């Protein structure tokens, strides 16, 4: 009985940790966005307010971003499409966002979605 109780505690602790770590802590622009979302967000690129880029909980530099985006595009060509969503912190500057958008275009990304949070 005690064994099972401890296992339950460990289980919920682990689950809570995963839930916390899935998203980078940031504040998105408070906009309504689109009402309908027809397709998955694809590769999510987080742009923090200090200009750092985080993909899948990993801070990436330009080279690593290129690798991830190209792999995503390659997977998209095999089927399913390759959309990219940029979650930019609303307190950040457009200098970093412009640089990121230009870089994604250079890499061959056709369309970029901008993530928002509903007010």
């Amino acid at each position, binding site marked *: *009985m005690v*064994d*099972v109780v401890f*296992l*339950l505690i*460990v*289980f919920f602790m*682990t*689950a809570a940790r*995963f839930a916390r770590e*899935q*998203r980078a802590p940031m504040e998105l*622009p*408070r*906009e*309504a*966005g*689109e009402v309908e*979302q027809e*397709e*998955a*967000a*694809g590769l*999510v690129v*987080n*742009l923090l307010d200090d200009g750092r880029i985080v993909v*899948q*909980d990993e801070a990436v530099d330009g080279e690593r971003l290129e690798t991830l985006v190209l792999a995503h595009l390659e997977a998209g060509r095999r089927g399913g499409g390759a*959309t990219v*969503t940029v*979650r*930019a*912190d*609303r*307190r*950040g*500057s*457009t*200098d970093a*966002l*412009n*640089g990121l*958008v*230009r870089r994604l*275009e250079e890499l061959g990304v*056709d*369309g*970029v*979605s*901008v*993530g*928002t949070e*509903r007010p």
Partner: protein
Amino acid sequence: MPFRAPRRRSLDQVPLNLASMIDVTFLLLIYFMVSTVLAPDERTLDTAIRQEREGASADARDFVPQRITVTAEGGEPAWELGRRRITDRAELERLVGRLPTEAGMVVEVHGGVPVEVAVAALQVARDAGFEEVSYVPAE
């Protein structure tokens, strides 16, 4: 000759310890949770505004798209529609709402502007009914 059916009673009474079974089940569950790479929840986020390359739409080639310029010249972030400089969002919504939407909207964004101001322009264009809204970094 008396025959007796084999006793099944002893089989029916095999004790089954459920506690250890639950124990193992939870251990397996935790093992797979820890070892599996979870698909990030971000992938199911709402996408807000699709940015496409300028001129991507084949239907609107004959028209010049509308343009909002987002700039921070003068120290204060503002939207420019034509020659008009707008700092009030309600005013921007009112003016953009009057524009024809067929040719799409280009939001040209200069550096040094808070991201939320640029995204607000995208949102205003979307809300006004523009199907094609493009985010264009200013040179």
